[in-house]
């Protein structure tokens, strides 16, 4: 049975990368539909994505941040009946060659959510800076305690979701810096998570959105969000997977 698969590509000022990102996904698997969510970029990201003719483009009228942009993708996936959706960042740090690894566990019904992790295998590819790795470690310990499953790369945005997870996240995706929070949210609500080792690339052009003083804010904001989230009641009652 053929499954409808959607690549959600959030992009903010990624004019230099977006075209290539779209092409590499299509080259990897032409059956995958691509949705670019242009988060109110100030450059030509949206127009360039449209000009490839290979992707559907949503141009948001306001900048929502990565959470709101990716959630728009989930809403699109729900409305257009996709079976699987995966997030693939518009900055070129995710590798199209790894998509298959991400999606296969869902096709085989092994997991509801698959996270591409830079850390669950010995040194391979780009693995962020030492300071960031320390921050990522904090999330690993915290989230692993909270959902009783070891997730090594809580900040990875390279993730694939099954239909149920897509529906759930279309209504409940966190804002601002959503990745670590989403892991907790999904784990707590009974979705099965799985990590697969992937390589990532250092971004080719442009700058990361989290630098300097923002890193401190990022840690505090996300830690607060995760802890508060842990105190919230479950949103889904007794789900049966499959």
């Amino acid at each position, binding site marked *: 049975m053929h499954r409808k698969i959607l690549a959600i590509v959030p992009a903010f000022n990624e004019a230099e990368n977006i075209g290539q990102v779209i092409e590499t996904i299509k080259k990897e698997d032409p059956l995958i539909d691509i949705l670019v*969510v242009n988060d109110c970029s100030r450059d030509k990201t949206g127009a360039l994505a449209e000009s490839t003719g290979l992707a*559907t*483009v*949503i*141009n*948001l*009228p*306001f900048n*929502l941040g990565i959470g*709101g942009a990716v*959630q*728009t993708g989930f*809403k*699109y996936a729900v*409305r257009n009946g996709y079976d699987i959706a995966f997030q693939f960042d518009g900055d070129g740090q995710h590798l199209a060659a790894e998509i298959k690894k991400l999606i296969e566990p869902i096709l085989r019904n092994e997991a509801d959510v698959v996270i591409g992790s830079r850390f669950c295998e010995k040194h391979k590819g780009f693995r962020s800076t030492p300071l960031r790795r320390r921050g990522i470690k904090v999330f690993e310990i915290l989230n692993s305690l909270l959902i009783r499953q070891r997730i090594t790369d809580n900040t990875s945005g390279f993730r694939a979701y099954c239909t149920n997870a897509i529906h759930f996240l279309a209504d409940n995706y966190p*804002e601002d810096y959503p990745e670590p929070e989403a892991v907790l949210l999904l784990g707590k609500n009974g979705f099965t998570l799985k990590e697969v080792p992937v390589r990532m690339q250092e971004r080719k052009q442009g700058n990361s959105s989290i630098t300097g003083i923002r890193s401190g804010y990022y840690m505090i904001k996300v830690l607060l969000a995760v802890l508060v989230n842990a105190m919230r009641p479950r949103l889904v009652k007794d789900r049966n997977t499959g």
Partner: protein
Amino acid sequence: MSILKNIDTNIIQYVSILGSLVFIGLIVMLIRNKKIKEEFAILWLFFGLVFLFLSVWRGSLEIIARILGIAYAPAAIFLILIIAIISILIHLSLITSRLTDQARIMTQELGLLKMEMDAMKKAEPRPGPPEDSRTQG
């Protein structure tokens, strides 16, 4: 010293009653003129009434101070004032958070709809509205 001895403490009572009334009147005016929604003005009105009550019945402040163990009764008024300001600020944060949420959902909907509309336009390019739609009344 003689000036202090002759202070008529009734004056401050009149001033506070007047002040509270003017404040309540202002809020009511703003609601009446639809400058503030009732929902947002409730806390303002509530604390306006509290202050009116405190200024009409002066002994109440002493009683509150005694219950709370405040030695210097007028300090109680500052406590009440600070509680009032903080609760109104929290209420405002609540409202902004809700508005942010609504704006996010609306932005997403707008993006999705715009995209769908563009796709529809591209799929069937129609040359303007049909002719007879205007003649048929």
